[in-house]
């Protein structure tokens, strides 16, 4: 056997072992959630606090609300832990719980939704003054983060959400579709549109 094929075989068995370990992890996670294991939950809260809070912050656009939803999401995880099947990624399940809470809240309010996660045509994006310097200029003058935040605020939430799930959370298209309870084709079209709008806004173009 050549060195290359040996390396490939080793690589293959390593990835098989890795995926088996991952599957075992998910299964034990599902078991722990079913048992409502307090230590497991506390560990998960620690582990996912940043990612979940960031996601909630970007879909609600409000820190206090994101904080409330953060806590409610974990209460839901505790109560409905038995619904996690141990096959899909835990974070996809976690985000879908958080998302449903936000949507329920929007429906209860019955006001103009924050950015209408449920309906692409609705939703007023967060506004900022038109006479701000061009976002590209801000990027170049080391204020990129504020500029990107502001640009992101201009995007409707449905695009912002998929962009964050894809490029920050690194979720796959199928996983995003699970979070959104939407077809993969919808996810793709939102990603294309969102990415194009983001690029154009950062370049100071009108969208």
């Amino acid at each position, binding site marked *: 056997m050549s060195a290359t094929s040996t390396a490939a075989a080793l690589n293959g068995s390593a990835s098989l072992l890795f995926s088996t370990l991952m599957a075992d992890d998910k299964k034990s996670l599902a078991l722990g959630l079913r048992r*409502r294991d*307090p230590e497991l*939950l*506390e560990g998960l*809260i*620690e582990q996912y*606090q*940043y990612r979940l*809070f*960031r996601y909630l*912050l970007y879909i609600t656009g409000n*820190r206090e609300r994101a*904080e409330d939803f*953060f*806590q409610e999401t*974990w*209460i839901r995880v*505790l*109560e409905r832990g038995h619904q996690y099947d141990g096959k899909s990624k835990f974070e996809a399940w976690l985000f879908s719980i958080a998302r449903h809470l936000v949507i329920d809240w929007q429906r209860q309010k019955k006001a103009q939704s924050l950015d209408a996660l449920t309906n692409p045509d609705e939703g007023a994006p967060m506004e900022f003054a038109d006479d701000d310097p061009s976002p590209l200029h801000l*990027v170049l003058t080391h204020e*990129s*983060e504020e*500029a*990107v*935040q502001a640009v*992101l605020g201009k995007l409707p939430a449905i695009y912002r959400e998929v*962009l*964050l799930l*894809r*490029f*920050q959370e690194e979720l796959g*298209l199928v996983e995003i579709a699970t979070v959104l309870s939407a077809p993969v084709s919808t996810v*793709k079209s939102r*990603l*294309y549109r969102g*990415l*194009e709008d*983001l*690029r154009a806004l*950062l*370049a100071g173009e009108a969208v």
Partner: protein
Amino acid sequence: MSQEFHVRAERLIAQERVEGISTADQQWLRQHLAECASCAARADATEQAIRSLRGLSVALPPALASRTQFRVRMRAQQLRGEPRWRMVWAACGISWAFGAATAPYVWRGLEWIGHRMGLPNIVWELGFGFWWALPAAVVAVILLMENAGRSGESVWKRQEN
């Protein structure tokens, strides 16, 4: 250069980042970008947009995790204290079925005991009624005790807060 090439390049630039493209498309795109400055600029801008997105950070509210952990712990305690409704319903169902199946024998048995002891009919008939209602009464007492326990716990929680 044909406009079609630019359109294809634009599509592939986005597609590469969203869902990936084939090796052949990748090669074609690299070649096109090397020759076309405007498409190359577009690809750079798209890459920059994604990089900016990935570079975003948010500040976590202080003690968010510990506050959440506390709430989750409290809720877990509450859940543990809640009666197991399935068990309660199963017990009710079984006792009802058992009661219905044995009712004629119990009736005759109590009648026989009542006559042997010289009791008035109303006494052993009441006894039968009591026997019939006993399981429901036991469940009611259990639930009342559960509720009393929980309200005591919430008073304790309020005092603690």
